[in-house]
């Protein structure tokens, strides 16, 4: 049997990698993927805890998170498309009209 802590730590690692990805990546879409990665890490944690406590609540949360992630994806990609259309670039660093 695998201790629950392993799962939780794995989720922590994945979450951290997501954060790194967000800071590291330049392409809007891949940055967004990093967010998805973070959400997946959350899901893993929920499932693991749910298992630890023998509760179903955690699984329900995962359900919501997935839906939210999907909705976000739809909107996010739409925004990415608008940006791509108007600026001809997907590099997030190019988008700096607003500053100071």
């Amino acid at each position, binding site marked *: 049997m695998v201790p629950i802590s392993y799962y939780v730590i794995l989720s922590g690692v994945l979450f951290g990698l997501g*954060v790194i990805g967000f*800071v590291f990546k330049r392409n809007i879409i891949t*940055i967004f993927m990093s967010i998805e990665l973070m959400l997946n890490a959350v899901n893993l944690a929920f499932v693991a805890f749910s298992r630890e406590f023998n509760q179903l609540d955690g699984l329900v949360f995962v359900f919501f998170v997935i839906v939210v992630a999907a909705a976000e994806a739809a909107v996010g990609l739409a925004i990415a498309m608008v940006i791509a259309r108007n600026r001809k670039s997907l590099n997030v*660093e190019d*988008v700096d009209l*607003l*500053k*100071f």
Partner: protein
Amino acid sequence: MFILEHLWIIMALPLAGSMLTLLAGRHWPKNYVNLSSVGFPVLAFLSYCELVREFFALSANQIPWIQNYFTWMTAGPFRVDFALQVDQLTIVMLGVVTFVGMLIHIYSIGYMAHEDGYYRFFAEMNLFMFFMLTLVMAANLVVMFVGWEGVGLCSYLLISFYFTKKSAADAGKKAFITTRIGDFGFTIGILMAFWLFHAVDYKSMFDTVANMPAEGMHQWGALTSICLLLLAGAVGKSAQLPLYVWLPDAMEGPTPVSALIHAATMVTAGVYMVARMNPLFSRAPAAMLTVAIIGAVTALYAATIGLAQSDIKKVLAYSTISQLGYMFLACGVGAYAAGIFHLMTHAFFKGLLFLCAGSVIHAMGGEQDMFKMGGLRTKIPWTYSTMLVATLAISGAPLFAGFFSKDEILFDTYAGPNANAVLYGLGIFAALLTACYMFRLIFLTFHGKPRFDEHHVHVHESPKVMLAPLVVLAILSIVGGWFVLPTYWGGKDSFQGFLDPVFSASNQLALQMHPNWTEPPHLLELQMTGIAVVVALIGFLLALYLYIIKPAAAKKVADGTRPIYELLWHKYYVDELYGAVIIGPLIWLSRNVLWKVIDVGLIDGTVNGLAFFSRRVGSGVRHIQGGNTRSYATWVVVGAVAVTVFFVWMVR
């Protein structure tokens, strides 16, 4: 008892004249102005006469007669009533002020006839009368201060009467400010008096000190401090060393002003005040000595300057300073009555001198330089003769008014309870110089050859309205001294006798403090008189020699003693000294350090610097907002790390 009950009437009359003239005079013909502005002083003099009549009906215990009119200031324990008082000293002073004042007003009708601002002149003169009367009749120090400052104001206004002249405006300002410096001391003196007595009215103060034991009086204490501070005020007002500088400049004013304010009345206020405060002064020997020293030194000092001046009014001004020095000397040695006596005679003859000088200037069409005069004796005989009388009086010619008063002072200096031989020496030497410079004035002005262009200057005798006061004053300059006949002539010092209630306590105290002092023999008095006469004669002869017999000698003497002469000519460079040591640095400091460096640079710089700093910080802070999303994410990560690390650390 009408006037005694309503003392304020005497003051109010000139005030009414002033206000009336001021408000309506601009649109009035001259006659109306004359009526109101000369009429009211005349009325004041008449009511003074009535006052004297009523005063003599009072019994001794009713004097001083004090009238409270209203409470002027009150706050906490401090309270000042607007109160007037009359006693013998007041009566003398009132007489001088109202009478001489009235005469000079009359004189001014002629003298000022062609001036612009005729009404203004009279309004201010009347106002001056009002304040001078306030000063004299005040029953407490604060009301006296009202008059004190008021006359200063009028002096300011009248000196700068010809305000379009820069010198006149400067002189007015200088007079006001210089006397203010003295008044600074006066103010603090009043404050201290209140602190000490919790009262500022004469009666309470004097009653309190009257019962004080004599021991410890030589110590330096509050009383001495008060006296010295009050003295500072007196020194300023009476133009003594070191605050005399304003008076010569004050001659920028019209001559009647010089006569009234800067010779007869206002400048004597300091002497009056010291005399009035005699119960305090006599309990502060150090202060007394200071008064005497200042007086004697000033008497001599001003006389020396008087020797070298060319402006007729300036000579008289220095002469005034010198004579005031005598009065201070008198007060300083405890001869208050003598001082007041000299004050009175001086008012007569110095007033006369100024009026005559005015007449001369009038005759010369405005010329004041004696070296551009000469030979006027025949052209303006009335002026000449009256002025000669006055000169004799001031020089101490026997039987003239000045002879008696000055003698008394010198005698008391030499032989009184507070006798001081050195001061006497100074005084007698000053007397010599007095005779010298006064006759120098007479000779330069009236004798010799005319040194002016007779085609352009039409010398003419003054109108009667100007001459009449001259004559009256000339008579007084002679008979004014006859109140006091030296005792060795079997005479009775009736003046001193009259004032005795005011000064007797102080005189007795002086005797107490100098138990070894004995009444000098009559012979001494005679000898002293002789010395004085001889000295005056020497002075006269000196002048005669230098300016009549050998006119060239004067120049030779001047050349021979060039440095001294220059020194005297430039009045010992005191004005320059004050300018270089006090005024200049103060202005420089204010402008370049206080204003430009501290105010604008330091304080405002700090304030604006803070604003600038805020903007710089703002500029820095806004650069956090670089517009790059990755940087933004970095901030979020920073926050997240900080918060979690901090929280975990907190839990530990």
